[in-house]
């Protein structure tokens, strides 16, 4: 179960490449940027407004004090600076010589004259201040300050909001991107699996359509229509082939039978008899091919199910090995049974022996002298896999789909006898059982990759 869940769970590297994930992150990023800009504007406008208001207040206070006689300034400054008169206000008077005269603001640097400036902290007053300092007519420095804690708090709050937003929004954004990508990615995965089956020659397979009408459904619909057309075309070709095979069987059999009688005519010269026998042999070959073609059609039609029964597949494998051992020995090929655990499949024993015989026959035929053909059975994950592996030239991946088609021998040497129907029969039998036939290289040696022919039977839902 865990392994299956892990297999079904897409990897993050796959997710982050999806257009859904990228779009989600892109749109989320843009939204975050927009929010940041709005917050920055709010902060900037509010801070600027507060600065302006403080400046106006400071200038008003400065104007009030500057309007007083110079001699009254120390007392006025002292009175203004006293707590309670103006809780946010701070005042100071510095003599022309730079000595503190009155108020709660000292002459702490930096001291900028003529315009309002901000001071974070100082030895006289704790906390942030906005200060306006001007010289009096006799050269003293009059300072008017105002607590700017509100502005600083506003800035800090906005920054805190930005930081918190980032901490919350970024994981949310990634999470949303992941969540939004999983569905499409799983659908793409399903589509890929079906595409793989179609590429392997399963033209009856169809892309899953979820009925949402989105772009994946449209794509799946289009591919299904294409595959349907290809299937129909191939079925027509098969149908024509079958019709030819069927219609020619009777007249060819009659010709064969007439030749058979002619060959037994009394006083027939031996040379003529040999020629007729040769013609009969050729006709028998043609009739056998036609019979095989019609048999494949019969199997592909999928009607034959009366022979289906729970069958010990390991015993059938043993029968086939016993059957082909002398042939392998004659060709100096080792036919070996690997691991053959007891395995029961719901299948037609006659047909499975035929399929396995074809695979073993092919493996022996294409094996080099001294080569080994190994037959094994493996069971795992509700699946039984029967493998016939050889050390022959193998089948290039691009020809795998072709070699299971009728009469297609791939790149097989013309010197190797065969009709090009063996693997078609195996594929038809596998198809009838709803088993999968897989043909892959058996070895990593590129010069002689061999062939690993596998019949994979799902035992989870026996048909």
């Amino acid at each position: 179960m865990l392994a299956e869940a892990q297999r079904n769970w897409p990897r993050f590297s796959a997710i982050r490449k999806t257009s859904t994930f990228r779009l989600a992150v892109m749109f989320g990023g843009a939204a975050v940027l927009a929010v940041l800009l709005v917050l920055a504007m709010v902060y900037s406008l509010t801070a600027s407004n507060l600065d302006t208001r403080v400046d106006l207040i400071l200038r008003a206070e400065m104007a009030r004090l500057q309007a007083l006689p110079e001699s009254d300034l120390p007392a006025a400054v002292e009175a203004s600076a006293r707590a309670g008169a103006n809780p946010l206000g701070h005042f100071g008077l510095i003599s022309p010589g730079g000595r503190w005269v009155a108020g709660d603001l000292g002459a702490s640097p930096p001291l900028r004259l003529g315009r309002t400036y901000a001071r974070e902290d100082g030895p006289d007053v704790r906390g942030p201040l906005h200060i306006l300092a001007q010289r009096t007519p006799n050269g003293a420095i009059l300072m008017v300050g105002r607590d700017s804690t509100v502005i600083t708090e506003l800035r800090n709050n906005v920054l805190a909001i930005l930081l918190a937003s980032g901490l919350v929004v970024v994981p949310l954004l990634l999470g949303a991107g992941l969540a939004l990508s999983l569905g499409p990615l799983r659908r793409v995965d399903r589509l890929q699996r079906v595409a793989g089956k179609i590429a392997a020659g399963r033209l009856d397979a169809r892309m899953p359509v979820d009925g949402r009408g989105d772009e994946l459904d449209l794509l799946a619909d289009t591919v299904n229509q294409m595959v349907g057309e290809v299937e129909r075309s191939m079925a027509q070709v098969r149908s024509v082939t079958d019709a030819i095979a069927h219609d020619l069987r009777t007249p060819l059999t009659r010709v064969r039978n007439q030749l058979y009688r002619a060959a037994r005519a009394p006083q027939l010269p031996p040379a003529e008899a040999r020629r007729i026998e040769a013609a009969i042999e050729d006709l028998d070959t043609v009739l056998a091919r036609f019979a095989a073609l019609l048999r494949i059609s019969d199997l592909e039609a999928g009607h034959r199910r009366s022979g289906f029964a729970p069958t010990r597949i390991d015993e059938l494998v043993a029968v086939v090995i016993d059957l082909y051992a002398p042939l392998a020995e004659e060709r100096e090929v080792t036919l070996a049974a690997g691991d053959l655990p007891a395995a029961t499949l719901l299948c037609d024993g006659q047909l499975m022996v035929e399929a396995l015989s074809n695979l073993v026959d092919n493996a022996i035929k294409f094996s080099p002298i001294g080569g080994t053909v190994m037959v094994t059975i493996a069971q795992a994950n509700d699946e039984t896999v029967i493998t016939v592996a050889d050390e022959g030239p193998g089948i290039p991946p691009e020809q795998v789909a072709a070699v299971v088609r009728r009469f297609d021998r791939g790149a097989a040497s013309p010197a190797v006898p065969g009709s090009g129907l063996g693997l078609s029969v195996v594929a038809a039998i596998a198809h009838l059982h709803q088993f999968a036939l897989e043909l892959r290289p058996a070895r990593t040696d590129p010069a002689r990759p061999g062939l690993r022919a596998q019949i994979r039977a799902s035992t989870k839902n026996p048909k």
Partner: protein
Amino acid sequence: MARILVIEDDPDTAAEIVAELAGHGHDVRAVGDGGAGVELALREPFDAITLDRMLPELDGLSVVARLRAAGLTLPVLMISALGDVDERIAGLRAGGDDYLIKPFAPDEMAMRVEVLLRRQRQMAASTAMLVAGPVEMDLIRREVRVGGEAVRLLHMEFRLLEFLMRNAGETVARQIIFERVWGYYFDPGANLIAVHIARLRKKIDLPGRPSLIETVKGEGYRFDAG
């Protein structure tokens, strides 16, 4: 010579079967429908029947079922245009002894009838020992002696030799050998049976003497003890 009943509604096919079987020295009667076939088979003694699967009114499956229900054990070769392998199974399950698909080669048809006839005769004799020339086969102890010397045969080699000896003197096609000895109904290819025959020859043939199993080119194999 055996008496054979041909139940076939197609006159051309019936004539072909009759001609071929008569050519093999048999006494052949033909009828065109299932009901008449059952009536004749119950009334007169026959050694074997060739029976068309698709007959008007009473079809081949019903015919063979009625014959078996009436206690007739004679061998029946069913002949059918229905190539579907399920049909073969249905024919054999209904009581047929062998099944041949149309269009067929008359020599193969005759060969199958001969095999059925010989099997029937041997069943009647219920022999425990087969002897042909230098070969003695003890069917109970499953032992084989050639020229008095014991020969060890594998299980399928024993069955192959038994089948060939039971049909000694007659040619049997490799397809029939494959069906009767191994019990499978697909074409195994020419080489497969040939190598099994070759292995058997190595075990039973006497040095300096012609092989006991003769290859009949284009037809099959014949056990010939001389």
